[in-house]
């Protein structure tokens, strides 16, 4: 780590003994990161920031383990992996991201222990989520959090669930599959997570028709640029004149790259890494790879400029880029970028439907 302040902060997180101290550190880090924003390349910024988030979450997991032990509930009965989904999974968390998480634990040697083991991890996951909430990470609206028993299960339960989702893929299940595609381990034993991941890709390999189901979900969010090259902005309300950068630019691109990546067996979860590996595999030409990389970095940069507020201590963000931020040059850059995403979407559609 080139930045000594940053390294010191990470060390302090790892040594921090309670929630209050962690929360103080998070606030400090936000100030530090905001100051650094213009000073370094955007991908470097995200890497640093996500290291910090990871460190905080990891610390919360460790502290929760200790807390469980103190409460007389013992230590983890079997190895586990604490997973991040969504932007955390993709290493694209901003300063205001929420919690999208899951938990996966090894199958107990004796099936009769399953109830006790699941009881432990459900309590444990609730404690982690609660602690992260105190660190001002709001839980995800869609209830994709480890505290939700559906997202806190043993490896074989997880695998059975994936089997079901792949075999009978309705809209909701396809959505879950795409969420799982972005998962990444943040704490615990990597081999458990790897097993899940390989199970997922084995299904992808055998079950090519699933791509058709995934396509609709992937294309669900429209790119906010019109046939005249105009941007579709918010017409009404407080955010009139803003551009919904999150759902009109960033998410469509994330979705498109994800589908190509999982089709091509690319294991990486960050969108930039996926673009790089897709280029290496020849799915994108060198030129396309460069274009997509550039556009995604633009979106990453703009995401940090979207309207955010600190509401009763919680960091929130509506994902919208205010009119006042939209300079003439930026609008031109955005239009070019959005048209590129439309091209990318076309490519995804062609590949998914097998029409070349």
């Amino acid at each position, binding site marked *: 780590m080139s930045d000594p302040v940053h390294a010191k902060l990470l060390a302090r997180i790892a040594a921090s003994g309670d929630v209050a101290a962690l929360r103080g550190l998070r606030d400090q880090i936000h100030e530090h990161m905001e100051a650094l924003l213009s000073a370094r390349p955007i991908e470097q910024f995200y890497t640093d920031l996500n290291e910090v988030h990871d460190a905080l979450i990891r610390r919360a997991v460790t502290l929760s383990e200790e807390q469980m032990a103190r409460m007389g509930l013992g230590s983890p009965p079997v190895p586990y992996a604490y997973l991040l989904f969504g932007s955390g999974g993709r290493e694209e968390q901003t300063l205001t991201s929420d919690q999208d998480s899951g938990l996966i634990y090894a199958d107990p040697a004796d099936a009769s222990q399953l109830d006790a083991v699941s009881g432990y991890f459900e309590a444990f996951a609730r404690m982690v989520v609660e602690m992260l909430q105190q660190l001002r990470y709001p839980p995800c609206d869609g209830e994709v959090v480890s505290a939700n028993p559906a997202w806190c299960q043993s490896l074989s339960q997880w695998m059975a669930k994936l089997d079901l989702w792949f075999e009978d893929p309705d809209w909701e299940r396809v959505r879950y599959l795409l969420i799982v595609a972005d998962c990444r381990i943040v704490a615990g034993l990597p081999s458990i997570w790897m097993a899940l991941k390989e199970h997922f890709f084995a299904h992808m390999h055998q079950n090519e028709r699933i791509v058709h189901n995934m396509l609709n979900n992937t294309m669900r969010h*429209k790119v*906010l640029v019109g046939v*005249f090259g105009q941007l*579709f902005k918010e*017409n*009404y*309300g*407080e*955010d*009139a004149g803003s551009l919904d950068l999150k759902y009109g630019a960033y998410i469509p691109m994330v979705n498109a790259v994800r589908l190509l990546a999982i089709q091509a067996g690319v294991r990486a979860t960050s969108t930039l890494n996926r673009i790089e590996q897709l280029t290496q595999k020849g799915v994108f030409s060198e030129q396309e790879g460069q274009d997509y990389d550039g556009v995604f970095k633009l979106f990453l940069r703009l995401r940090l400029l979207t309207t955010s507020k600190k509401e009763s201590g919680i960091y929130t963000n509506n994902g919208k880029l205010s009119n006042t931020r939209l300079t003439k040059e930026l609008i031109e850059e955005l239009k070019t970028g959005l048209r590129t995403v439309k091209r990318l979407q076309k490519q995804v559609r062609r590949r998914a439907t097998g029409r070349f």
Partner: protein
Amino acid sequence: MVKKLVLSLGALSLLFPAMAFADDPSAATLNMGLNSIWVLVAAILVILMQGGFILLESGSTRMKNAGHIAGKTVFTLGLCTLIYWAVGYAFAFGADNTGTGISNIIGSGDFFFSPDKAAGDGVGLPPAIFFTFQLAFAAVSLSIAWGGFAERAKLSAYLVFTVLFTAVIYPVISHWIWSADGWLFTKGAQDYAGSTVVHLTGAIAAFAATVLLKPRIGRFNKDGSANEILGHNQVFGALSVLILWVGWFGFNAGSALGVGDGFFGYVAFNTQLGAAGGAVAALLISWLVNGKADITTTLNGALAGLVAITATCAFVEPWAAVVIGLLAGVLVFFSAKFFEKIKVDDPIFALSVHGAAGVWGTIANGIFATDALAKKLNVGEGGLIDTGNWHQLWVQVESVVVCGGYVLVASFILLGIMKVVMGLRVTEEQEIVGLDLSEHGTFGYPEQMKKAQQNM
């Protein structure tokens, strides 16, 4: 077959001997009778358009005002009828002052109209039917004006303005363009069924009202951005457009004021083309520009096509009717955006649908009217494309500017006086609780609104 026919005719003549022996009616009487049937049916269709306005206006606004908005239309239709009968018709079509200088500006005669009980010799249409048809138009113009009052004007403001509008605003414009004595008629201004007379007049009164009333609570934010106040029933909106669309055949084709050589059929045909163009163009333009095909815009587009084709339906070729409708559909979309941008709250889009499209329709005659049709109707001459002459376009622009100017000034003065003397707007509390309760004491949707109130 023939045997059967003869037998049954014989049987019929036994039953109804008059059929065989009565004097055959003269050709003139038959002609008059046919005219009467068509124009009275047309007048009824135009009155039925009030049903369209009831649904349009209440569907485009919120539940808490629905009963008030719908019911007041029935009241103002009644009051408008009495005022038009007493004085409005006299100012519009009274011919007692023909020949005097003032007759160019305003008519006089037939106050408290008492028509002949039957058509006189050589009269193509009984005067009672002509009156009914003209009255229906006045009532439509008035209902358009209510668009500017919606959801915040006091009931008493509706009462007073009905009297003023029906007595001294609408009849003046109607006289200028449609009375044989009117100065714009003499100049050859072409407004077949009233893009200016009915629609622009109503829209400008609505504009004055909406400016003087100020926007509804919550329509615009402090920073100038707009909020969307959605209407409570889009199905009412769509149904209203269909009712108005059908009623419009009475509006336009009825304006032939007779059956004649069947020309009214051509007018109806062009009307359908204009409406179609407006609906199609509006949906497509909203889709292209906003990325989402907007239903409200589509409905407005159909109406704008109808408004624009109202002046032009008898003066243009079918292709021009399509072009006029298409452009009206595009115009209404951008016009609505424009009024929102200048922070004019136009809940029913009256200014765009009836105002912008009314101006466009009137001016379109100066561009698309053919000389042959102008000569046939004996009103003005062909427009720019057919004749290469700018004259008719100038006349059309002049009539729009002068008529619009008169209505604007008169409405601002009259509504301004009302605002000072009696106040136009309900209190903030009344507006929030809804006009159903504040003006009438009961809800249009009692179950839903009582539930909503309990939750408050």
